[in-house]
């Protein structure tokens, strides 16, 4: 274990209409087993004791499952974490003494800035409300084996369902496209018999809402899957395309 000193360059912005700018702060002797968010807590302690306004950023569970943390660190959403981890699981040992660390918010028209690096991701909730669920009445609990599901499908659906909706895919995409998120949410249901009943309506409604909210068109650059903290793949996007085209052709 060692301590490192570095310069942090962080984005300050008062609301969606403000132009925004970077502020910098020298961080001294930070233990390298500090997590990135703990480091930002230290930054805020120092800012507050110096009588300055603290830096605003989203965070909640700090164990990689809630999808709240959303920082664009040195050009990568969530920073260069271990594969499959969010900002909260990024540690200062990934940085070197004397580095300049640039922290930016998710930049996308679909995610307006609330303050500094906190962005409004309500758009994802709206897409979910448009069809990311089943309306099947479950009734009496059935026997567990009443509906047979192949293990491979169940596993794949579970992988799709592990999407935490953090928005890193949108942040990484040069087109501001939300296709990886939407496709994971469509896939987690499309793969299972219970979800197939409403598959066509779901794909059409969720895509219509996604387009309406101003997300871009996917051009298959794969930047989304490269940064996804839950390792979602563009196979999901192909599945969504398939579901959507099938639904439209059936109309």
């Amino acid at each position, binding site marked *: 274990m060692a301590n490192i000193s570095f310069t942090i*360059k962080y984005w300050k912005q008062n609301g969606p209409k403000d132009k*925004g700018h*970077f502020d910098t702060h020298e961080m001294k002797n930070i233990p390298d087993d500090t997590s990135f968010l703990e480091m930002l807590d230290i930054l805020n302690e120092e800012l507050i004791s110096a009588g300055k306004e603290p830096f605003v950023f989203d965070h909640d569970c700090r164990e990689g499952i809630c999808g709240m943390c959303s920082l*664009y660190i*040195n*050009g*990568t959403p969530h920073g260069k974490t271990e594969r499959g981890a969010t900002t909260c699981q990024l540690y200062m040992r990934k940085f070197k003494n004397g580095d300049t660390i*640039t922290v*930016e918010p998710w*930049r*996308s*028209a*679909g995610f307006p800035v609330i303050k500094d690096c906190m962005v409004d991701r309500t758009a994802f909730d709206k897409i979910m409300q448009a069809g990311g669920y089943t309306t099947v009445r479950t009734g009496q609990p059935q026997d567990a084996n009443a509906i047979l599901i192949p293990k491979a499908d169940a596993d794949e659906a579970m992988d799709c369902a592990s999407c935490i909706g953090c928005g890193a895919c949108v942040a*990484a995409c*040069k*087109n*501001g*496209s939300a296709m990886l998120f939407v496709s994971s949410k469509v896939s987690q249901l499309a793969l299972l018999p219970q979800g197939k009943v409403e598959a066509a309506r779901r794909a059409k409604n969720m*895509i*219509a809402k*996604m*387009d309406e909210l*101003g*997300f*871009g*068109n*996917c*051009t*298959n*650059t*794969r*930047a989304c*899957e*490269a*940064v996804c903290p839950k390792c979602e*793949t*563009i*196979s999901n*996007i*192909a*599945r*969504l*395309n*398939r*579901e*959507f*085209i*099938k639904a*439209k052709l059936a109309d």
Partner: protein
Amino acid sequence: MWLINSSIGRKVVMSVTGIALVLFLTFHASMNVVALISAEGYNMICEFLGANWYAVVATLGLAALVALHFIFAIWLTLQNRKARGNNRYAVTDKPALVEWSSQNMLVLGIIVILGMGLHLYNFWYNMMYAELVHDPEMIAMATNGVYHIAKTFSCPVYTVIYMVWLAALWFHLNHGIWSSMQTLGWSGHIWFNRWKMIGTIYTTVIILMFAAVALAFAFGYVPCDMQAPACGGCLLG
């Protein structure tokens, strides 16, 4: 109309027009290779196509495909820039997984279109157009395709421009082929890798076919049966 109103629909238009254009390129490349084997054979193809009604109809169809592909590309790009928002990132780091060509398809496409302009001027104008307007001076050579190939590639500047053009086309198709299948939904954990490999091989073969003809003529190759002063350059004996 979902092909216009939805993001996936617009991508489907790009995909289908793209695939159609790849099929056209396949036909075009196969035709070109004939010029390496037999000048007479190649000129027969030129005559067969010429300004016959089916060739003119097919050309109009191709023009429509190119126009659709181009207009949708511009439209999608404008929408995507808007979706990105006004603030650009100060620092960006491209993941290793992301192909350079996938993020520069518009630029590559524009290079391809500019090259196509030059290509139409070098060949189409002297061949189909000459027949269509019955230009008395140009008509004599209108179906002599080999003459036009030899003439164009006798100029090194044209040869270099054509090579740059073909390189841009290689990058464009290398991303475009698997991307079009992904858009149509014919992809997944297994087919993604297959399409990527198929795309790279297919693209390389087509581009090599085009490049072989251009380079052969640029370096003085003459088909065996061509009425030329020296047949010494014939590679096929």
